[in-house]
Every structure is written in C-alpha cells, then in structure tokens.
C-alpha cells in the first residue's frame, strides 16, 4: 500500500535517471520524514531481535554437554538436548538397537519419492516396480520377523517413520478417493452424485480428531467378533478420507474450469466416459488446481500430528513424551524447534517442488 503510493507519487516527477542502491534506498526507505522515522524504528527492532536470536541460538548456546547441568549454567539455547534425545524423538519407542532399520527405511523412502517426482522416471515400467520394491522393503524393515530381524509390532512404531507412513499413506490412498468423489459429485447419475455429496459434506463438517476417535474406538465395535483391522491402517485410512474430502472439492473446481467443448470433442471422437475423463479432462483439471492441491497435501502432512489423541507416537508426540524426562524437561523449546525444522524442511520441499511443476506446466513440458 505505502509502496504503491510512493511509486505513484514518483511517477509524476521527471524521469529518474540515476539508479543504484542509494537511490533505491532513498526511494523506498527515506523519501519522507515519517518514512525515515518508521525505517529507523523498524530497523532498530529488527536488529535488536536478530541480535538476541544470534546470542541465544549461537553465541551463548551449548552444543555438546555431558549432562543437563552444563545447559542450566548457560544463558543460551541448549542444543545438547537434541544430541542427547534425538533418537527417541526421531524414532519413538521402536527398539533402540533396531534403529538402523528406520534409518534405512527413511533413506529408501526419500530415494523412492525423489525418483518418483523426477519426470525422467515417469514411466509405468519404472514407477510400478520401484514402488512395489520400496513398499516391500519398508514393510520388511518396519515389521521384521523375517531374515533374522526381530518382529516389531505397529504399536511400537513411532517418530519420523510413523509420520512418513501416515502422510504418504494418506496421500496415496486419498488422491484416488478424492478424484472419485469429485467425479461423483459432477456425475449425471443421481445416486453417485448424492452419495458423494453426503460423504464429502458430512466428513468435512467434522473435526479430524473426531474421525480418528471413531476409527479407533467406535469402528471396532461394528466388526464381527475376532476380526480386527490394524490400528495404524485404520488411522491412515481415516486421514486419507478426511484429506480426500477437501481435495475432492479442489479437484471439482478444476473440473468445472474445463470448457464444455472438450467433452464434446471427445464425444464426437466416440471416446467413452472413462477414456474422456482419464485422458482428456483429468489431466487438464489437475494441472489447473495444482497450487490448491499442494496446499492440502502440506496440510495433510501436518494433520498426521493429530494421532496424538489416539496414542500413536508420531514425531511430535514422541517429542512431547521424550521431554517428560525431568532432567531435560526445561529445554523443550529447543526440542520442539528441532521438530519444527523437520516439518519445515518437508513442507518447503513440497512447495518448492510444486512450484517447479507449475513452471513445467506453464511451458508445456508436462
């Protein structure tokens, strides 16, 4: 606002010939008394804050310590708590001597995902075997029970691997459900349309926590005696369905943006409903709603932390549990900052990748 006013004001002056950093600073920071005053105040606050942060996080911080006492004596941050506690934070209650399996799992996961997001790998002959191999390897690593690996039940899974499984599972299950719901909502068949509307509207109107609670505590009551569906699977599907309801509405927006002529052209080529939908309509609709879809995918990643209420130890819950340790309790800020950094890295990577994809779409590369 202020900036556009200034630019407008300057537009009436004779053409500016000089340029360079001084000129730019003068125009943007010191062009009037009031502005100069604001600039100085803001600069003072910024410098003061940055200096405080630098002092706390770097200069006075304790990086390595033999015990919590060293941290208590220091004025700055206690990064030593992360050195001390990083394994239970990252891996939860998974047996300590088996943590190498989780490291390997994360490496396999990241490799697979990064490869899948590279256009050069977008071939069925690469993607399908790669995912089958990765899912098999991760399942074997996580559960064990074969090849001499001790068995670890899902109730002992936790930390970053659990967050990764919940997030990936809910997006992989959720996207197809979202597409079907979006198509259903625009279907000419009244039953399909009605079901989709009821499904979307009823689940969107309920907090995720409620859905998780129902999935864990109420759903089993409806199952025949003796039958049990794994809790982790129930939770993943619940988050997936919740994610799908929001994503379906985004995709519906994309579908509505496709002109009628596209359907007519496909119809006059005698294409069937599914041929038209899969080959003509969806590829265009998904490109249109890519930014909004990214939004919900990032939200889904953070929604995994809701599993705290049903006793699964995702990375955030694991941190909370770890920081109950009375010796280190007071340094919870540092521990949470560490977890926030992990979320931030994943979130930023997702949004940067999405922006890259948008630019590919813009130049017609995909």
């Amino acid at each position: 606002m202020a900036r556009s006013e200034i630019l407008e004001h300057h537009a009436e002056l004779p053409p500016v010939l000089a340029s360079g950093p001084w000129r730019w600073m003068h125009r943007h920071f010191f062009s009037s008394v009031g502005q100069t005053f604001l600039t100085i105040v803001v600069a003072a606050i910024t410098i003061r804050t940055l200096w405080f942060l630098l002092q706390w996080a770097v200069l006075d911080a304790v990086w390595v310590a033999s015990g919590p006492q060293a941290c208590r004596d220091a004025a700055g941050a206690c990064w030593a708590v992360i050195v001390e506690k990083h394994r239970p934070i990252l891996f939860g209650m998974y047996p300590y001597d088996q943590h190498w399996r989780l490291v390997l799992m994360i490496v396999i996961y990241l490799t697979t995902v990064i490869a899948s997001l590279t256009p050069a790998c977008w071939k069925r002959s690469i993607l399908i075997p790669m995912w089958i191999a990765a899912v098999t390897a991760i399942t074997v690593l996580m559960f064990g029970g074969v090849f001499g690996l001790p068995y670890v039940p899902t109730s002992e899974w936790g930390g970053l691997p659990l967050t990764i499984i919940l997030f990936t599972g809910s997006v992989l299950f959720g996207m197809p459900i979202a597409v079907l719901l979006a198509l259903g909502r625009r279907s000419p068949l009244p039953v399909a349309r009605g079901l989709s509307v009821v499904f979307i509207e009823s689940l969107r109107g309920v907090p995720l926590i409620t859905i998780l609670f129902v999935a864990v505590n109420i759903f089993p009551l409806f199952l025949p005696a003796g039958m049990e569906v794994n809790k982790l699977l129930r939770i993943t599907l619940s988050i997936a369905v919740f994610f799908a309801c929001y994503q379906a509405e985004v995709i519906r927006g994309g579908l509505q943006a496709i002109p009628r002529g596209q359907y007519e052209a496909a119809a006059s080529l005698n294409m069937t409903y599914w041929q038209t939908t899969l080959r003509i309509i969806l590829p265009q609709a998904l490109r249109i709603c890519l930014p909004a879809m990214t939004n919900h995918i990032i939200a889904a990643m953070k929604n995994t932390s809701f599993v705290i209420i049903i006793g699964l130890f995702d990375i955030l819950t694991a941190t909370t549990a770890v920081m109950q340790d009375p010796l280190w309790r007071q340094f919870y800020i540092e521990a949470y900052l560490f977890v926030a950094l992990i979320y931030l890295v994943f979130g930023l990577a997702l949004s940067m990748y999405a922006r890259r994809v948008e630019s590919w779409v813009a130049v017609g590369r995909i």
Partner: protein
Amino acid sequence: MSGVSKWYGTFKVLNEVSLEIQRGERVVVCGPSGSGKSTLIRCINRLEEHQKGDIYVKGIELNDSVKNIAAIRSSLGMVFQSFNLFPHLTVLENLTIGPTLVRHMKRKDAEERAMHFLRKVRIPEQAHKYPLQLSGGQQQRVAIARSLCMEPEIMLFDEPTSALDPEMIKEVLDTMIELAESGMTMIVVTHEMGFARTVADNVILMADGNIVERAEPGEFFSHPKHERTRTFLDQILKH
C-alpha cells in the same frame, strides 16, 4: 431426419424439421443466429438430444441405445467453431488419441495416418507443437485432420470459420474445398456464401427452427423463392 423437434426449456429451437441428405452430397446450412442451424447438426451426432421425431444415419436410428449412438458417431466427424483441440496434448497426440484409444490402432500406424492427414491439411511441420502455439487457422486445420483420422463418412462443420481472423478463413476453406472434391459427404453450417456457391450441392436457409428454403446454389442465390431468404441474403451480401 423427419419431424425433428427440440426445445431448450420452453423455447422451441427446432420445429418439426425434416431433411434428407444423400451420400456424397454437400449441404450448406445458413440462417440468422438463433435459427437452430447449429442445434440441427449437433442433434445428428447426439451432442444435443432431440425430443421428437426420428433421425436415421446410414439406416441406424438415433435413440437412447448407446450402441447406436456409438455406431452413428463412428461414421461422423465433427468440426467446431472453437476448434476444441485438447490443449494438453501435442498436435500429433490430438490426432492419434482417437484411433489408438477408440479404434485400438497400433501407435505407429496411428501416427502414420496422422502425418498423412497433417500433410493433407498442409501443416506436417507443426506435429510436435501444442495447439495453443498455432494460429487459429492452423488449429482449425488440425481439428479437421483429427476428425479425418477417424475415417468418417460424413463430416459436420459447425461454423468452422466464425472464430477466425479474415486472413485465416481462406486456408480453412481451401482445406474444406479439397475435402469436398474428394467426395466426402458434408453438412456445413456457415456464413461463407462464396463457399456455398462453389462447393454446395444444396443450400438450406433456416429461420426460427424451420427449414425455409432448400435449393441448389445457383437457384438459391439468384432466384430465392421465399421472402425470408431474400431479406437474409440482402443482409449478408450487402457489404
């Protein structure tokens, strides 16, 4: 077709229209906007559903039977005013998607056929571009080629030049004239009277959902029988 009627809501767009077109015939349909001429040809391939009367294409009745609709559409090609190319596919993919998906042709054969028709419409060099990188006239020629790749026996044109700049109209009309010379059955909704005069076997004037006049072009332009035809021709030929 006989006695075909169609309503949009309570508005009657087609009023008991009866029309017979022979194999190899080239028919131009003209008339003021809102006269039902687009609706007429869109009914023939079921982009619009007629509510009364019968439509037969090659002896197959156009009714609710999905099989019949598919059979009829497979002998029809359609060219739209706004091209309706698939923007996310290259020109070549636009041409091969029908033959490969619907006709289960091998990709290589479909591509050969596509290049054949791209040469026919004189833009083989654009095969790997995306539709939106082409001019309007080029896009419309791609659209014609896309229809031809499905080997239709009858081509329907819905105002194929109305969305084009004047200098591009000619290249599209030239393509259509060549198609007519090859013996294709064509039903063309257009305001291009020059095209009607040189190519059409019959010219039809529609007004208010009725076929007002149907005549050979010579007759139609020099001795129109109906007052309505005369006023229409006056209006569009004046300038």
